């Protein structure tokens, strides 16, 4: 359902380095990726630290301006810039919280996923897990026969954890390539896919999850 656009293949990662990217731009990208990805992604710790520093600086500046008779027009514009950045930051952190809440058992049983969380998020995940576990114990499990009281398994004869909600990695997402990507294999098939910069694609998430993490592909 597409026309081939006239963009030039072959321009590689260097292109990226040529155009300067602001931290807000990076945060917006992280926010969109986090919003669109079914699983929780790596916490952008350095970026978030920089952004919070810039927000704090801007808050001080706006405060200073307001008190010092700088024209109210500029002050209101600076405030708008500040509001936009704060919204992005809060929304980014909220989306992650929601994923932690939703997949709390999956996260607490998977050290690889835990390593994607910030220190504070890890603490929150631990408490989420304890609280929900306690709630399910009291409401359901304590009322069941002994062999059926496990929270992760249906019964004692289950060989693996068969009651843990996990993110659907089989989901399809919309993505945009940021550079030329030579033919790569799609998960679970023999098909190969090639992407040019700005190619827009609906794709099986599993096939591109590493590329999203590496910043080669953006989810939109």
């Amino acid at each position, binding site marked *: 359902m597409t026309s081939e656009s006239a963009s030039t293949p072959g321009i590689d990662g260097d292109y990226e380095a040529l155009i300067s990217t602001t931290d807000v731009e990076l945060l917006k990208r992280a926010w969109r990726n986090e919003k669109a990805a079914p699983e929780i992604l790596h916490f952008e710790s350095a970026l978030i630290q920089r952004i*919070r520093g810039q927000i704090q600086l801007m808050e001080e500046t706006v405060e200073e301006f*307001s008190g010092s008779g700088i024209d109210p027009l500029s002050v*209101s514009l600076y*405030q*708008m810039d500040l*509001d*936009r950045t*704060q*919204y992005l*930051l*809060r*929304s980014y*952190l*909220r989306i992650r*919280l929601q994923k932690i*809440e*939703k997949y709390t058992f999956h996260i607490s049983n998977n050290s690889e996923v835990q390593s994607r969380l910030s220190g*504070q*998020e890890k*603490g*929150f995940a631990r*408490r*989420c897990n304890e*609280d*929900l576990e*306690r*709630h*399910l114990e*009291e*409401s*359901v499990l304590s*009322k*069941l*026969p002994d062999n*059926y009281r496990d929270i992760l398994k*249906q*019964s004692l004869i289950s060989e693996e954890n068969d*009651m843990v*909600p996990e993110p659907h990695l089989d989901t399809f997402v919309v993505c945009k390539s940021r550079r030329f990507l030579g033919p790569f294999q799609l998960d679970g098939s023999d098909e190969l896919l090639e992407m040019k910069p700005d190619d827009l694609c609906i794709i099986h998430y599993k096939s591109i999850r590493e590329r999203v993490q590496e910043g080669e592909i953006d989810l939109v």
Partner: protein
Amino acid sequence: MYGRKAFQLVKELASGEKGQLTPYNSDLFDQVTAECSQHHLELQSLIRKIQEEGLDVQTTRNSEHYGSLIHHLSLVRNKRCLMAYVYNRAEIIRSLIWKVGPVLPQEIQERLSHTEEEYFKRHSAALQSYMSRLDLDLTVDMVPPKDPYIQVRVLDDIGVVLSDDKTTNFARHSMHFLKRTDAEQFISRGLMEELTD
């Protein structure tokens, strides 16, 4: 029929309006847990029977074996339904923290079970402690920001008003550019109207 009650419980959950809690159905819930205990008793007596006949429980495939299998599977299914009921309600309960804040209004609280109330309190506390360690309130800025200033027309003579250490004369029909938060008190009293272009 086995599993019918558990099915009703889950159906109640699924037919509720999205994001809304139906009253916690402890009656039906307890009936399902009672059914689970019953399954377990029957299961045990069937297994005892196999053992009494001197047969190996692991390998025997007689009618007692298949009977016990049905009780086991029914029990597992009931467990899943009970868990789904509480788990999905817990999801809605968590979303309430964002929608109505840390104190639940009476009419919502009435729909929760006792342990659900406890869960709500504990989870609110967990969230609070995360936000205070983060030193950032995440309950604000829930939607993308709009221009904090709006253009208003004064509908009635308000006179001179002092705000943000400057005075403005809000004469009738004059137009001003004000902070949305400052203008709202006048708009709600019918003294100003917002101009949309």
